[in-house]
């Protein structure tokens, strides 16, 4: 039998399919779009097809992400916080602190050593510094997200953005472009601003993160510029799992497996 984890986020819908031994047999990331039910169905169909598995062979589905309630045949809906903690501990055992930045949420999760959440905090009031923020900044810089993620490599300055409000930051980026500031410097400034904001989230759960075993998950973990800036800000190396945007779905699939194996008979 197989276990399916679905993470329905604001930007992407991720699926991970595990076998009985908790090996990942298929995974996918598809855009969520405006119709998340269709995205859920598409993600599910892709992993089943890639693994050559029939839907009847799925023993349990656990859903997470903001759209978790929309999954109809789930065994349970579990929050992203719990799922990311479970997923990262499976892939990077010994992780003490996880930073997850997704489409509209940033989270810092302190782990207890056994994959359980000891404490967590999330961004409040606005989504500055998340995937949506980076999308808007990439638009302003007229580059795609992948280009943006490595644009800072050539930067040498210490520019930082004064505003983290997406609208004001976009205006600031446009002004910097108009002033002739190289895009590499602007990208570095953006990354530093995101890192400063994320660092304060991290320090709310762990005042001295330096030297802790820190990992990062979520779609923004695929942006090396942000990861570098955050590691610099925290003063600690940040380890990335394979496919960081699927860690929530992986955790959901693992929880599905855990719960089925715990059930009597």
């Amino acid at each position, binding site marked *: 039998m197989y276990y399916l984890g679905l993470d329905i986020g604001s930007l992407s819908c991720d699926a991970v399919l595990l076998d009985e031994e908790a090996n990942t047999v298929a995974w996918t990331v598809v855009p969520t779009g405006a119709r998340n039910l269709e995205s859920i169905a598409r993600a599910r169909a892709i992993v089943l097809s890639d693994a050559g598995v029939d839907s009847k062979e799925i023993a349990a589905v656990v859903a997470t992400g903001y759209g978790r309630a929309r999954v109809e045949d789930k065994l349970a809906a579990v*929050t*992203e916080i*719990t799922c990311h903690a479970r997923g990262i501990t499976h892939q990077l055992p010994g992780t003490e602190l996880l930073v997850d930045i997704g489409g509209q949420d940033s989270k810092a999760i302190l782990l207890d050593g056994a994959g359980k*959440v000891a404490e*967590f*905090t*999330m961004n409040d009031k606005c989504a500055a510094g998340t995937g949506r923020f980076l999308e808007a900044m990439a638009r302003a810089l007229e580059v795609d997200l992948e280009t943006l993620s490595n644009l800072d490599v050539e930067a040498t300055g210490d520019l930082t953005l004064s505003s983290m409000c997406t609208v004001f930051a976009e205006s600031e980026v446009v002004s910097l472009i108009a002033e002739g500031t190289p895009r590499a410097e602007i990208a570095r400034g953006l990354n530093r601003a995101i890192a400063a904001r994320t660092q304060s989230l991290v320090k709310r759960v762990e005042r001295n993160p330096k030297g802790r075993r820190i990992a990062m998950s979520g779609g923004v973990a695929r942006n090396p510029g942000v990861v570098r800036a955050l590691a610099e800000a925290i003063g600690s190396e940040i380890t990335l799992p394979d496919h960081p945007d699927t860690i929530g779905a992986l955790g959901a699939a693992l929880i599905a497996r855990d719960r089925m194996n715990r059930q009597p008979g």
Partner: protein
Amino acid sequence: MMLQYFEGLTQGLEAKLTAGGSKYVARKRYALEVARLGVKLFHPDTRVAWCGIAVPFDLLNAMDVTSCYVEFVGAMLASTGGVEPMLEVAEQRGYSTDACSYHRSVLGAAIQGLMPEPDFLVGTSAPCAGGLAVIENLAKHFHKPLHVIHIPPHRGPEAVRYLAEQYRATADFVAEHSRRPLDLDAVRAALERTNQLRELMVEINRLAAHTPTPARRKDMINLGIVMALFYGTEGGLEVARAYRDELTGILESRPADSPRESVRLMWLQNRIQFKHPLLDFLYDDLGAAVVADELNDIPWQPLDPDDPFVGMAERALSIPLVGKVEWRIERLRVIAREYQVDGAINPTQWGCRQGSGARGLISDALRSEGVPVLNLEVDCIDPRSFAEGQLKTRLEAFVEMLSN
């Protein structure tokens, strides 16, 4: 219009209580007393004072002045669903949306003519400067005299004497502007009722702390903080007796081995005052229960009716929201132990510097007691910024964490 509304509400509640048929009457009795207060506030023959939270309401009740702290109005407007136009009016007059919405809504209501005109106002420097500022604004708006009480941020005999003298001056101010002399026998009788109310509230809290709590999910909301308005009154005593009897009855009639709640929570400071689904979500979907409310705590000792101003000063200075955060933390530790809570929810009100400033210290202190804290950034009055999905995710993750 408002007078008719409160008269209708009073009649409806009186009819329901007279008809009987329900074993749960305490909250209705509480609502009736609030409705009666509304009638008095809007009645043309009543002497009315708008006040700060740390005003001794038993003194004003003894002097036949109907009084109310302004934050109560904000809570009422939010709970009845009518707060948004008030906030918009205040904002149109230039009040920053970063200012506390309890205060913005009251200013909006005053500008809209929905607040009864006071005879005078009594402000207090604690627990927050914003509360005093709104009282000053109202005094200017209504062109009425204002008396300000400075609550010292420290404790001890000097602070008590200093505040007691000010309360004596407050009584003189009230006597002058209500044109009724201070009757010390009436004050003494009021303080005796206050002491009875205190005993009952302590008993209610002791009953509510049982596992599982006998208190129904919404019955204890705002109880302690609103009861301050009824200090020294027979109406307040009747409400408290109804609560005590109801909780006692529930405890006596339920099986002795009733299971403990899977997750017991303490709510810090303000409840969210407008209608929202979070509480039902906590109970019904997550299996958690809010069993303790910081604002229901009664930390003060009985007052000496023969030394009323000193007693009132001692009471005000023992309120944990006045003075050092350390004092508040001490009480929170006591409540957490008494109620055997697994975690605490701290919804720091937007624009509340006191709540926001204390957040880190409270989290650290309760965590060291083994009580994790979920900090939420919430506007308890303004529903326009309510992020239901975001808040549900945080609550759900918190309960998952505690359950693990």
